[in-house]
């Protein structure tokens, strides 16, 4: 039943799930009922690794497992040597704007850049240094210098030329300033100028607001702004691939915040940006780039303000007309996450019981019938049909196992009866109330 769970995976699974979060390790052991979705993920990652680009929309309602799937996607991608960045759309972060909200999204993405050895984000300096090291090594080789000698200040020019040359080869738009700034980062390192290095990073993360300021600090003419940040993301993607990474994966959650934009024109411009990304990825204009958007059904399908309100997107994202709840098509750009059914939840709980036993080296006495009884109790609680999520079912189940473990004689029926479920849905104001401007 527990297919090679490692002890530390078991601990991570149990502890994280009791805390209501997706475990950092061993997530594969709780993927019950998600076989098709995972196959789709794996095949998408393989495609991107082989030079294709991809956009996927993960659509599901509260508690359908969007966060779980994105987390799993992250874990697999990091292991597969992808550079991964996660960011949420917020009222202040969006794809298109002319008041800094676009570049704010870019900054959030660049702040969260993660690699396997820095899974929590903040990997941009590491990646930059890794790439510069490669350039240094190449330049030293080409000029017959040792790795120590090449770092001397008099050879700064050589490295500078090398950086500019490689970046020019890689990038299409904005490459000159991009190269200049990377070189400034290196210069800061050689000259021990921490300030210069920080400024270079600040520029790369899109945190300069005025061109004057950037020119004074770094001697470049441009800054990353609402209009050019997407080109910069593509440049970074090429750089990461050049360094030997499999690709660049960007996950954007909470697409409801695009839906909520009250001005129709601005909302449409945001959807237009999604269309640009979509076309770039599927028409092969970019390589090794993987965009994931996550949102609710309303965000996708609402004809008045959802993605379907933009006809060019609607025609691309509309469900395969041959798909039904039984016959699914996971190769589409839109992957609809359906909630786990009772049989799947039952298998998941059985599996968790086995992992729990393994973790605590115990054998909790709870039969299949009792697990069934637990589920029935829970699904009959007031409010269960509206807001009971697998997260809560799992947490309550593990809490009960913990009680039984420590108090073997306890009355299980009474325990099941005592459970209360709570509404954990985000307190969003009704979407119908949004005023249209």
């Amino acid at each position: 039943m527990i297919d090679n769970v490692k002890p530390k995976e078991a601990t991570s699974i149990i502890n994280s799930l009791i805390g209501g979060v997706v475990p950092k390790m061993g997530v594969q052991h709780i993927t019950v009922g998600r076989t098709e979705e995972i196959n789709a993920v794996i095949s998408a990652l393989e495609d991107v690794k082989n030079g294709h680009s991809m956009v996927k929309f993960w659509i599901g309602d509260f508690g359908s497992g969007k966060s779980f799937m994105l987390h799993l996607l992250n874990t697999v991608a990091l292991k597969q040597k992808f550079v991964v960045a996660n960011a949420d759309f917020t009222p202040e972060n969006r794809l298109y704007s002319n008041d800094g909200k676009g570049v704010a999204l870019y900054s959030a993405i660049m702040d969260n850049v993660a690699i396997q050895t820095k899974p929590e984000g903040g990997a941009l300096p590491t990646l930059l240094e890794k790439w510069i090291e490669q350039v240094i090594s190449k330049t030293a080789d080409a000029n017959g210098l040792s790795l120590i000698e090449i770092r001397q200040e008099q050879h700064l020019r050589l490295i500078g030329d090398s950086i500019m040359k490689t970046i020019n080869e890689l990038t299409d738009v904005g490459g000159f300033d991009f190269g200049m700034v990377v070189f400034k980062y290196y210069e800061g390192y050689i000259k021990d100028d921490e300030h210069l290095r920080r400024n270079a990073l600040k520029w790369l993360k899109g945190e300069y607001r005025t061109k004057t300021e950037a020119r004074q600090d770094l001697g470049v003419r441009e800054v990353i702004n609402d209009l050019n940040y997407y080109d910069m993301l593509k440049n970074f993607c090429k750089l990461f691939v050049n360094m030997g990474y499999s690709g660049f994966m960007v996950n954007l959650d909470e697409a409801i915040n695009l839906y909520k934009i009250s001005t129709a024109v601005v909302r449409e411009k945001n959807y237009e940006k999604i269309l640009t990304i979509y076309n770039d990825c599927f028409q092969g204009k970019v390589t090794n780039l993987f965009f994931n958007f996550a949102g609710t059904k309303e965000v996708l399908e609402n004809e008045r303000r959802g993605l379907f309100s933009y006809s060019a997107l609607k025609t691309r994202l509309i469900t395969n007309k041959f798909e039904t709840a039984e016959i699914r098509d996971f190769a589409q750009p839109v992957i609809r996450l359906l909630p786990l059914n009772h049989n799947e939840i039952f298998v998941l709980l059985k599996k968790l019981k086995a992992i729990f036993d393994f973790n605590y080296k115990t054998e909790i006495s709870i039969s299949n019938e009792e697990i069934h009884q637990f589920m029935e109790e829970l699904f009959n609680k007031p409010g269960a049909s509206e807001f009971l999520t697998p997260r809560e079912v799992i947490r309550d189940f593990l809490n009960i196992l913990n009680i039984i473990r420590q108090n073997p004689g306890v009355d299980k029926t009474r325990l099941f009866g005592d459970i209360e479920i709570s509404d954990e849905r985000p307190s969003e104001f009704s979407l119908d109330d949004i005023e249209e401007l």
Partner: protein
Amino acid sequence: MLKQIPLPDEATDIELYAQNTNRWKIKFEELSTNYNGNPNEFTESVIALGNLNIRNPSVENIFFEASKFMAKHDKEKSLYLYIYYLYYDLKSETFDNKQLTKTIQKNLFKTEEQLKYFEVIVQEFVNDKDLNKALSSISKVYAVKRKKIKLDEETIQQVQQQHSGTVELLNEYLRDDYSEDTTDTLIEESNDTEIELIVSQEKTEISQSIFLEELSLKPIQTKTLELFAKNNFVIAQSEIEVFAKSNGVFKNQLIDSINDTCYEHLDDLLIEEDDDDYTINTTYYQRILTQ
């Protein structure tokens, strides 16, 4: 003078209600206006009023109106009174079978199931005319129906099987030595860009490393780990910065390359970054030593 006239007795009342078929409305108006939130009391009063109207041909209307009135206050009593309405309606000359309005029905029945259940009660009552049976069934309309969860052994087996396949597939993609394979291919593909972090090229003799041979740590990485060991496994980031620079490498890149090399063996990070320090997990450190 009014005070001197005594109230009519029951028999007179019955006669009066029979004579004036709309007389009940005055009493009903009084009952509904003075409704004090007690549905039982109201229902009893309406039944009593019904008894006094026993000879009134429009007696059923009292219950129909009462049922409509109670729909706002107590659903169960409203249905109870509706059954009474049917009872008297069935006894009357013509069976009108008046329906409650759609709005009231919507208010009374939140689910299709409740409506269906009530319809069954009504149908049975019309057939058997057993008032007590019908009245006692009313309470079941609103009783919460316990949902049964049906599990299917065959589907469970299928789910289990599919899940095992998925775990196997993911294990393959997440397995510890996976990155080793990829790194190898990547090195082959981009051989010219690969970094060689050999600091002193003259030094050719292989010194006996205290670290696992399979890790193939580069001299600078070994030197860094030794520095950690000397400093009780915690070193300030600024110190590593100086150390890295004196060895001609970047600080972040140095730490990352060690973590990357050891990741396959540990499946976790060896060197963790705190606010100002780098810390080595000593348990992990033991695991990369040769002994």
